[in-house]
């Protein structure tokens, strides 16, 4: 059975460990191509996720949403109930500094495990579990280190591929154009495959995406957590591993996101930030001023509606931004 995960923070390895097939819903090739029954105020990403979840649910597959944003949480109410036992809402704590937050995550991890078992999943032997976890960790590490070996689109596609089927093909010859171009960070919500043209537009305009910090970019690979040896036999340890790799805008406070960004922005000499958000995504839109203040860099804000309906204008805006940065 395929299990469609609506967020990269749901541990896909854990699904695989149970003999089920994890799929990043946000990496689905069909994402962004559906005709939606839009309602006023609904985030387009949430709406696309709902439609896809309905579609996959109707085919007998399972869907997992997260509670991290109001739109997705409420979207689950619309999709989850009709799907009954094949739908799950993972209650991701927004806070992370207290014992209660960790215990909530830990309890949710157990509940998620029970959900996978109800789907017919069965945890494999400790050795197989260790192999799956280690392999996924290696793949993530390999992907993380390839950020400067591929074009922005190539890198994003590799990550999407990983979230879709767990594979990462980064061994091919470098298609990156060296260190040329103005280094920028693309920060924000999920950038779906249909929206990768934005990355092309940045490169065409003389920019170089030095940090893809969108929810589907490098950030989605999580932190390089120092977990020595095999953690697979210890569920507590594994849950900690999954908990601490979350870096996102909805965390309170969201200082982990800023720390992660700062490290890369400084290390990669980023000179400007492109803030990408879906229409009606309050969590990301509200960060524009804070990002500007925190990094003292020029910011260009782009939204999914511009990307969809007025691509030419969007390209011009990106080109103008790059000109400023040069």
């Amino acid at each position, binding site marked *: 059975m395929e299990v469609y995960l609506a967020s990269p923070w749901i541990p896909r390895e854990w699904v695989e460990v149970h003999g089920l097939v994890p799929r990043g819903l946000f990496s689905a090739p069909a994402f962004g191509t559906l005709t939606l029954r839009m309602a006023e105020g609904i985030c387009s990403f949430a709406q696309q996720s709902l439609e896809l979840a309905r579609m996959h649910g109707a085919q007998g597959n399972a869907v997992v949403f997260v509670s991290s944003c109001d739109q997705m*949480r409420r979207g689950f*109410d619309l999709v989850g109930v009709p799907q009954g036992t094949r739908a799950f809402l993972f209650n991701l704590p927004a806070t992370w500094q207290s014992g209660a937050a960790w215990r909530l995550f830990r309890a949710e991890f157990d509940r998620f495990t029970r959900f996978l078992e109800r789907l017919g999943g069965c945890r494999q032997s400790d050795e197989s579990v260790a192999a799956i976890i280690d392999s996924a960790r290696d793949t993530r590490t390999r992907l993380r280190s390839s950020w400067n070996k591929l074009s922005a689109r190539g890198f994003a596609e590799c990550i999407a591929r990983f979230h879709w089927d767990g594979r990462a093909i980064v061994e091919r010859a470098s298609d990156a154009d060296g260190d040329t171009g103005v280094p920028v960070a693309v920060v924000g919500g999920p950038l779906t495959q249909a929206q990768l043209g934005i990355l092309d537009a940045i490169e065409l305009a003389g920019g170089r995406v030095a940090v893809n910090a969108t929810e589907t970019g490098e950030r989605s690979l999580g932190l390089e957590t120092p977990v020595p040896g095999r953690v697979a036999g210890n569920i507590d340890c594994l849950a900690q591993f999954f908990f601490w790799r979350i870096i996102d805008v909805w965390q309170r406070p969201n200082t982990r996101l800023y720390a992660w960004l700062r490290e890369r922005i400084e290390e990669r000499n980023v000179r400007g930030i492109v803030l990408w958000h879906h229409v009606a995504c309050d969590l990301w839109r509200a960060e524009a001023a804070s990002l500007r203040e925190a990094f003292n860099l020029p910011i260009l804000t782009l939204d999914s509606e511009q990307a969809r309906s007025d691509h030419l204008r969007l390209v011009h805006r990106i080109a103008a931004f790059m000109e400023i940065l040069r």
Partner: protein
Amino acid sequence: MKHCLLKPLSLDAWDDRYRELVSSGLMEPFYGGPLSRHVTASGDHRLERLRFDSSPAALRLWNFLLTENERLRKARATGDRLVGAMKDLGTVPVMAYALEGLRAFYPDGTWWTPCLMEETDCLLPKAEALGIDASFCPVRAMLAAFQDGGHFPRPDFLVCSAGAVCDDFSAIAQRLEKLGFPVLWWEMPRRRAPEPGEAQVVLPGGMVTARELVDCVREELARVGEALAELAGQAPSDAIWNKAVRAANQVRGLLAELRRTVYHAPVAPVPALEMLIAEMLAIHYCSDREETMAVLTDILDEARRRLSTRIGVVAENAVRVFWVNPVADLRAMNLLEEWGGCLCGSDFMFTHALDPIPEDMPPLEALARTALADPMVGPAADRAARVVREARAAKAEAVVVARIPGASHSATEGRVILEAVRHALGLPGVEVEIAPVCDAMQPTLAGRLQALLETARARRVKKP
């Protein structure tokens, strides 16, 4: 025997009435005075467009509401520490008021300032300059109020629930912290039904949830309690929190009685607008718990007196409307009555602040259960079920869901609630968006609300 219809008063008419009352010996609390002074002194120009109940009890209610910032400043001057509670709407203040020397209030309440001041304060454009534009809920006014310090005094301590809360509010509170106002965040997990075999807990209001969620919130409230106690220079204890719960229940008991008296009356004895204000007192007692009790007692006495003397504030054939969500423009509640409706029940987003807090269990457990009963932290279907139950009990003829402009929850919840109402009760319903100053939208609002009221009236005729 017909009811006597009591007409609402304009602000000017209230000034005349005020003079009459004073000359006939009206006794007022220290914050009393004519309502029009709030226009001249504070710039609350919206009052000039509102219609008010004519009772001295309503005068006291309005004066109490409109002097809150003054009260907070006085409290600060006398050495009280101010706690800015954010988002949970009704739980943290219960704890804060049990500690001597603390006053809690909701900076969230600033969302009504642009309405009251008819945007002359420019809080919304100022919020935009701070990075939060018009696509966010009007609660963004809070951000500018913090920055300019001209409305409420800056709190000594800020605490905000995070997790299953509106994205707008969460984003704005995070922006606030980045502007240099430290926040203690506490986790409010999304409420869910227990799974088979999982330990469960019944919450106030009758919903059932998983034990582990209550444990999480209880632990978080203990953390909040420790911080509050430290601010007050006291040691937290169950005895203190028990006292807090009992005091909160006194206020909630009064409100429950008021709601029963007004909403179940054949002809409403208190207008919708004053009921909205009265209910709001539950969340943080408008910064004075004892006075809240006195204000509510007055309103309740007035409602009972009117009921017994067959005095109502709406026509006898007014359409009974159950209202969901608070309105950004208070005038909307007047309009409902002017167009032939009356309020027979409400869910102003804080029903958990109206339900009695259990007293037969450890206080933090009781408060955790109460916090988790928040209609905003669970599925919209839970909220809809309560709306259906209460609308049925109140013999509602129609349901209105007020959309809050830009609010993340408003995108989907209205549809869920109205579908449940149609399915379970067969009642007509409508969703209307109400801006902080809704004058420009009044024709649209009139079209939608009047059509709803007409539909409800037509259904009366069709009934055998």
